[in-house]
């Protein structure tokens, strides 16, 4: 039936990025548009479940320990967090969490104060790149295209669209996005593009050389 969906967190896709917690992409799976919400799993004790970071200038977040037990470090202070613990993280708080038991899952909820929610580029690009690594290029490309629709003035969205179009073999589309990205943030694009293997299919095209010169 439309209008609602039921999900089991343990059944969600596992997005594994070396050095990062295992992302369970709940918001993307459900299509939530009012707030950010994702889960992270640590399979073994000591696994990272929340990367060390602040969200300065970004979202206020709440973490809920759903299964297992986590040890949070909040501005340098360790906090034991068994299942059922809620941790509030204002944007400026330095936070990190590791699993203190096998099979720990933490739900992360977030949004900016005083602003309508829009999904973060981080989520879109993490998912798109994970799908690409699995060989699901079309799925990754679709995420990048959707991101671009919602953020047409974001240089990273155009740059990632250029990468995915180049990988898909659409040189013309890739170059158009690359030019957009350059127009929005030339210095960052000129740093990244020369060594980005995802753009290799463009390098023999004279327009690429002209664009990033």
């Amino acid at each position, binding site marked *: 039936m439309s*209008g609602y969906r039921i999900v089991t967190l343990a059944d969600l896709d596992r997005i594994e990025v070396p050095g990062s917690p295992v992302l369970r992409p709940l918001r993307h799976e459900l299509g939530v548009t009012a707030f950010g919400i994702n889960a992270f799993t640590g399979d073994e004790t000591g696994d990272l479940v929340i990367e060390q970071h602040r969200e300065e200038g970004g979202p206020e977040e709440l973490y809920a320990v759903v299964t297992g037990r986590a040890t949070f470090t909040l501005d340098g202070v360790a906090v034991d967090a068994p299942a059922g613990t809620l941790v509030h993280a204002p944007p400026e708080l330095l936070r990190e969490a590791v699993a203190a038991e096998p099979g720990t899952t933490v739900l992360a909820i977030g949004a900016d104060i005083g602003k309508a929610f829009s999904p973060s580029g981080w989520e879109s690009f993490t998912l798109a790149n994970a799908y690409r690594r699995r060989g699901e290029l079309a799925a990754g490309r679709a995420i990048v295209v959707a991101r671009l629709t919602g953020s047409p003035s974001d240089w990273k969205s155009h740059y990632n669209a250029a990468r995915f179009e180049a990988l898909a073999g659409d040189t013309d589309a890739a170059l158009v996005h690359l030019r957009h990205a350059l127009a929005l943030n030339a210095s960052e694009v000129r740093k990244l593009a020369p060594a980005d293997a995802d753009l290799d299919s463009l390098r023999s095209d004279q327009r690429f050389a002209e664009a990033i010169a």
Partner: protein
Amino acid sequence: MNAVHVDDLERIELDDGFVWRPVRRYFDIRAFGVNAYTAREAGGQIVEEHSEGVLGHEEIYLVLRGRARFTVGGDEHELAAGQLVFVSDPALQRGAVAIDADTVVLAVGGKPGVAYTVSAWETMFAAAPLGRAGRWEEAIALHQEALAGEPDHPALLYNLACLEARGGRHLDALLHLRRAAALEPRWAEHARSDDDFAAIRGEPGFPA
């Protein structure tokens, strides 16, 4: 304090039988709505029967512990810990009863496309036990605090008038009831049969 276990949150028992555990208020979260709910006993209500038609919220209900039987749009589903229901259609009626006595449901909500604002029902829920205890001035103060940010909120004004009428502040009650009715005429109709206004129903100026 940046961390709390859900069992250590305040318990606010509401008339419909469920127990509100005010997460958002505890942390003063301003970016989204989030609260936990427990039941008084197994089989008791844990998520009140309601829709989000007025607020327009998307909502997620996660079973954090135990099991709950949800009814969403007339369909029944039993959810265990680690399962959730995402209700994207605000008009859908939804509610849940606890299957296990220690069940906890975490609810997260917000309206797509607009910045989050604190819902007026939180003030009314927070004031409910104060009203039951006859602590009118404290319940009134909570409403005044909420109205400072939203002075023309009809439901808050109406609820404030109820408390003022019960607490003996009859003129204040009349003023606020009249204001609520002017903003939304349905409140005048409510007031005619609301026991809270028994003491002032005969006063000049009571909405006809």
